[in-house]
């Protein structure tokens, strides 16, 4: 196994993502915690935008899920990690879903690929019938 710097998690918050208002709440919460961690200006907007996209996917394509926000210190770097999990239908072809413009919902198809560009780390785990988990982080520079 790879040697990993011990990661220390200070604040972890979990909020339900079930409807429209939860997307707004998730944006605000992510912004708040990111600010506490030390992010400023543009980074706060990039983070909130990515959160908006991924939580909307939970509301649109699954019936509900949760978001966990964690301030992380990994070795000498400090950042914020978001885990967004749902128990929905899952995605059978993740590679296709990650493509710019691909959508089964007649929308722009930029949520997943766009969120990956907005954050530093992005991981999606999903398969048909298994729900979807998106984990993404941003690190302070």
């Amino acid at each position, binding site marked *: 196994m790879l040697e990993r710097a011990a990661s220390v998690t200070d604040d972890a918050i979990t909020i339900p993502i079930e409807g*429209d*208002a939860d*997307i*707004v709440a998730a*944006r*605000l919460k992510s*912004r708040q915690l990111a600010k506490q961690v030390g992010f400023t*200006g*543009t980074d*706060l*907007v*990039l983070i*909130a*935008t990515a959160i*908006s*996209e991924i939580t*909307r996917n939970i509301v649109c394509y699954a019936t509900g899920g949760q978001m966990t926000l964690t301030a992380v210190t990994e070795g000498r770097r400090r950042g914020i990690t978001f885990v967004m999990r749902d128990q929905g239908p899952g995605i059978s072809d993740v590679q296709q879903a990650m493509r*710019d413009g691909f959508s089964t919902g007649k*929308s*722009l198809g*930029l*949520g997943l*690929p*766009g*969120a990956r*560009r*907005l954050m530093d780390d992005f991981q999606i785990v999903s398969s048909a019938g298994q729900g979807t988990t998106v984990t993404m982080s941003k690190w302070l520079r």
Partner: protein
Amino acid sequence: MPVPILKQGDILIASVQEAMSDSDLALLRDDLTSRIGEFHSLGVMIDVSTVDVLDSFATRTLLDIAENSRLRGAKMVIVGIQPPVAIAMVKLGLILDGIPTAHDLEDGIELMRRNVGKSRQRDR
């Protein structure tokens, strides 16, 4: 929280608030479309200067409002997109194709007056 729509002569002005939900935005789209008909408005101005997230749903809705406005004979201008918001939009891959933008309300009204003036002249 529904977005208030102000009527200023031929122009409708909507100031989008910070904590806008998707259904608030959809409501704004529908309200604006019916108000344009009701007031025979020639312009629609959307002020997003206090908005800190314009994601794919919001952008899609703005594009829809622009198209609805155009079909009803009005022009749309978006004012006040903040620089970090613009950076996020570019990273997402969002393009507000063909929609005029202005720095602030004052510039927006100026741009609108010029556009509306032009379409008035054409009408004659």
